[in-house]
Structures are given as structure tokens and as C-alpha cells.
């Protein structure tokens, strides 16, 4: 029973991006969301390195290592873009000027606690980057992650086991099988893959959840992996 692939998860998250917003996309699956934005939505993608208005990736023959995003991707700029320095960029992030950030995640707790920076790889050096700043500063934090680890353990938990990125910050989670809001009353499942039963979802989720009043099937188009 395969769940959504990476592009499908990114597509689903992209559908919730409102017109006119300023968004920061984390590396990995989140950054793919920019490819799946519904037509007619005019948004600005901000990147931590100071690019306000990231456009599509640069064509290989136009790639310029001076024009990159925070993930070191060579990019283009959209119409109306500008570039600021890192201090100003993080002032923008921490100051609440980013409407939404979509970040990859390891774990999300029912109270919104968020773990996405330290998976405790033995001996490898630490890497926090801008994750904590985004998780604290953006008006809304959305997480994208597989619903379960490769070993089958749940990533949606009563309490995070991995080191936290920030406390009580996640508002919505897009997994490969469900869309889940994090509310004052805990997890609320908004959408679920049609071939996953609610019982199965309970078995795969590490904390209680309720179904949203407008609970509905999670439907995405076929997309390349």
C-alpha cells in the first residue's frame, strides 16, 4: 500500500498556499512545492540567504553560483524579486513577515513540538541551519514527512523523542497518507488516503487524533517520483 510520493506530498502542501503570501520552503520535499503551485496564485518564495522571490531553478547553461538559494541550488529570480543580507533575511523571518514555512520533519508532537534538525547520526557534525529561526518566526509552520519511519515507528507523537527544533509551532502536517492539523485539542485529521482506514491510521500514529468536521479523502494527481 504505497503512500504519496515526494512530489505528491509537495503538491498537496502547495494547494494550501494562499494567493499573495510570502513563503519559505525547506530543503528536500518542501522545496518541490514551488513546482506545484496552483495556477493564478502569485506568491513570493523567500530563502534564508536573503533571496526574496526565488524563481525556477536556473537552466544548466545559466547557472551562476552567486545566484543560489539557501539549499545551494542555482536559481533564477521572479519578477519583483530582491536580495538582502542574512541579518535582514532572518530579521524578516523572526519578525513574523513570512506567512508560511514548509519544513521537512522527523517528528511532530500533538502539542506542536517539532523535531527536524538532529536525528542523532553518530559522529556526524551538527547541522541546524535556519530551521529553528523558521520554526519560531514564521506565522505558520507546516511540516512534511513520511507518516512513519523506515522501521515503521510513528513520527506523529505525544511527545517528540528527538531533540526539538522549536516548541509548539507546527500548525499542519502533510504526510504520505494524511493531512493533519495540530490544534489546541491535539491532532485533527483533515484528509486521509482512501485506501487507509481510520483504524490503520490509529495504528500508525503515536498519539490520539480526531477527524475534522469536514474530513475527506486525500486525493492527489499522479506525479513522477
Amino acid at each position, binding site marked *: 500500500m504505497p503512500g504519496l510520493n515526494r512530489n505528491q506530498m509537495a503538491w498537496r502542501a502547495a494547494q494550501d498556499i494562499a494567493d499573495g503570501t510570502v513563503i519559505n520552503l525547506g530543503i528536500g520535499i518542501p522545496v518541490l512545492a514551488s513546482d506545484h503551485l496552483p495556477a493564478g496564485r502569485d506568491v513570493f518564495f523567500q530563502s*534564508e540567504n536573503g533571496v526574496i522571490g526565488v524563481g525556477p531553478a536556473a537552466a544548466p547553461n545559466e547557472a551562476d553560483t552567486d545566484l543560489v538559494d539557501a539549499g545551494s541550488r542555482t536559481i533564477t529570480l521572479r519578477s519583483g524579486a530582491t*536580495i538582502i543580507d542574512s541579518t535582514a533575511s532572518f530579521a524578516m523571518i523572526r519578525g513574523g513577515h513570512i506567512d508560511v514555512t514548509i519544513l521537512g520533519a522527523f517528528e511532530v508532537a500533538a502539542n506542536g513540538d517539532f523535531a527536524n534538525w538532529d536525528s542523532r547520526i553518530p*559522529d556526524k557534525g551538527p547541522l541546524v541551519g*535556519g530551521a529553528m529561526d523558521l520554526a519560531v518566526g514564521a506565522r505558520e509552520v507546516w511540516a512534511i514527512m513520511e507518516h512513519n519511519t523506515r522501521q515503521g515507528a510513528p513520527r506523529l507523537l505525544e511527545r517528540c523523542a528527538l531533540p526539538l527544533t522549536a516548541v509548539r509551532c507546527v500548525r499542519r502536517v502533510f504526510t504520505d497518507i494524511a493531512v493533519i492539523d495540530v490544534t489546541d485539542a491535539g491532532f485533527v485529521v483533515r484528509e486521509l488516503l482512501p485506501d487507509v482506514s481510520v483504524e490503520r491510521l490509529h495504528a500508525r500514529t503515536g498519539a490520539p487524533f480526531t477527524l475534522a468536521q469536514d474530513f475527506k479523502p486525500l486525493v492527489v494527481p499522479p506525479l513522477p517520483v
Partner: protein
Amino acid sequence: MAIDKRVQSAAAAMEGVRDGAVVFISGFGGAGFANKLLVALRDHGAKELTLVVNSATHRLSLTHELIAAGQVRKVIASAGRGRDAGLSVFEQLLKDGKMEFECVPQGTFAERIRAGGAGIPAFYTPVAYGTDLARGKEVRTINGRDCVLETAISGDLALLRADIADRFGNLTFRHAQMNFGPAMATAAKLAVAEVRATQDEPIAPDRVQLSGVFIDRVVAVGA
């Protein structure tokens, strides 16, 4: 005497740098790495350095050459993880207890450097509250927001990359070259920029992106 901050070589730009210096290194994601100056600093040979750099290990930066040459005692950064599955030289030194490392959230990293250059000895930020990176730090609730106290970072030397410098040290940057450079220049006693080209005539006032007041030496190194 007419102000002129141009020096003839990257080596000359390192004059006076001492062992134990706190060195800011700009650059992020491939843009703005002062790799000519990093090589000059390696050749200069100053030891026991503390590096303040966003990533200890970015593949497009030559920061790792200073580390591999044994010139570095400590790194303050938001990233210290090598790309490969195996351990980088930095990670190996860290594992062996031969390298100090302070991991700082990237925005706090930038803000602490700005604070160093802006005469703000400390500030409260909500970032990192409740996480391992706030361990041992003073916390305080301000207007209902749980915060951590962070202190300024000041240093001895800043190495940055820009596009054009005039003789006053005014700089322009290409695209995303700026990143940490402007803040680092303000926080260092000696700020050096390598640039594609220098010019005698001043950069137009509304095109200057970093005032030469913050820059001590510039060296043209080409594209």
C-alpha cells in the same frame, strides 16, 4: 592623504593577523566565499584560530583548508556536517575532541554578529527556546514570549567576497554574495574584502551596498 584601501595582493591583506584571532568568514550556499583570502590566510599560517562561519564544511568554501592545516581551534557555525557518509576532517577532529564547536541557529548567528558590530552586547530572542541549543542560557518571558539571552560576537578579522570596491572601500555585491558579509565586516577589527575588480572612481552613493567605513582593505582577485 587621499583615502585608498586597495592592497596589492591577498597575502598583503593578511598583514598583522595573529595567532588566536577570531575570524569571520562570509559566504553561503556557494555565493560570497572569499576563497582567495582563505588561501592567503592558510599561507599566512596564523594558528589557534576561532572561525565564525555559517558552515564549517561547505563544499564550495575553502574553510576546510584552514581546518585541515591544523590552524583552527574552534568553530562557531550553524552547520558542521560534511556531505559524505564518512567523516570530514572537521568531524573527525570534533569526534577526537581536538576541535571545539558551537552550534548556533543561523538567524541567531547572524544577529549575534550584527550585535557585535552594532554595540548591542546582548539581546533576547525566542529562537532556540526549549531546545538543546538553549542549554545553560538564561531564559526570560517577555510579553508572553519565552526567550533566550544571546550575546554579541565580535572578532579580529572578517573575510568577505564582493563584486566591486572603490578606493574608499565601498562595496557592491553580485546577487546573493552579501549574506553574512556586511554584518561580519561591522563586527571585526580588520575587515578585508576580495572583489572581482577595484576602481578609482567612487561607486555611486545609491549603489553602495556596504559603506567603506566598515572595510579596511580590498584586493582585486578577478572573477
